[in-house]
């Protein structure tokens, strides 16, 4: 983890390992701890945690890992998840509750119910998906506080 402390914002950077499922979610646990130290309310922490965790897991199970950046701004927490995975062919479909391309292997690990993206949308105030087939996906989310 790299922490940058500029005058206007605190920034956390993580590399999310896509080869090792057992570490999936580590960055989100770390961010929650940092937000608690910074004194954020349980509600804000919970929303950031769930959205980031779902996105982090997605990067591991669908996109061979990537990077996660969290920027604590003046009135919002921004989460940027970037990967060089396969991209999302149909965003509208992917956003539907229950839609999942996860394999049975993934489901045996407890994930792949197709609720991740809808959940990320639900718990954040802003969410944008930039994706290109064969190039990767970047998801930007914001939770206002």
């Amino acid at each position, binding site marked *: 983890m790299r922490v940058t402390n500029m005058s206007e914002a605190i920034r956390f950077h993580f590399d999310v390992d896509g080869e090792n499922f057992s570490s999936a979610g580590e960055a989100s646990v770390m961010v929650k701890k940092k937000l608690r130290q910074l004194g954020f309310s349980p509600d804000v922490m919970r929303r950031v945690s769930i959205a980031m965790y779902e996105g982090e897991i997605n990067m591991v199970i669908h996109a061979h890992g990537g990077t996660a950046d969290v920027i604590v701004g003046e009135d919002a927490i921004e989460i940027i998840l970037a990967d060089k995975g396969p991209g999302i062919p149909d965003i509208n479909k992917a956003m539907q509750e229950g839609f999942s391309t996860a394999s049975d292997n993934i489901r045996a690990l407890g*994930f792949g119910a197709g609720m991740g993206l809808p959940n990320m949308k639900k718990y954040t105030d802003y969410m944008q998906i930039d994706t290109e087939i064969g190039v990767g996906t970047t998801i930007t989310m914001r939770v206002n506080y």
Partner: protein
Amino acid sequence: MYEIQSLLHAELLCGEEYLQNEVYSACCSDMMSDVLAYVKDQGVLLTGLINPQVIRTASMMDMICVVFVRDKAPTEEMVELARECGIVVMCSPMRAYEACGHLYYSGLRGNAGDKHV
């Protein structure tokens, strides 16, 4: 949570210092995706799934206790993670259905009600 431990004949793996805290509701699932999507304020997670994401999911959801059923043993790494997150971990020989039945019958409901264990 003492009562949960005794009702489920569970072995305590970590979090003894939190055992006196009370919980008001619980949920049971092997799908962490469902826990993330449907759980509201349940304090206890019963599961038969073994991986670090169980602990991380519980932590993300502000849950304070994880019970592994069917005598499934979490790894030392998972217990260490739970310690860091301040989560109580127990291991029960009961099956999920049985364990839930015992807790439900003792007043621990699926959503935050007024009874507690």
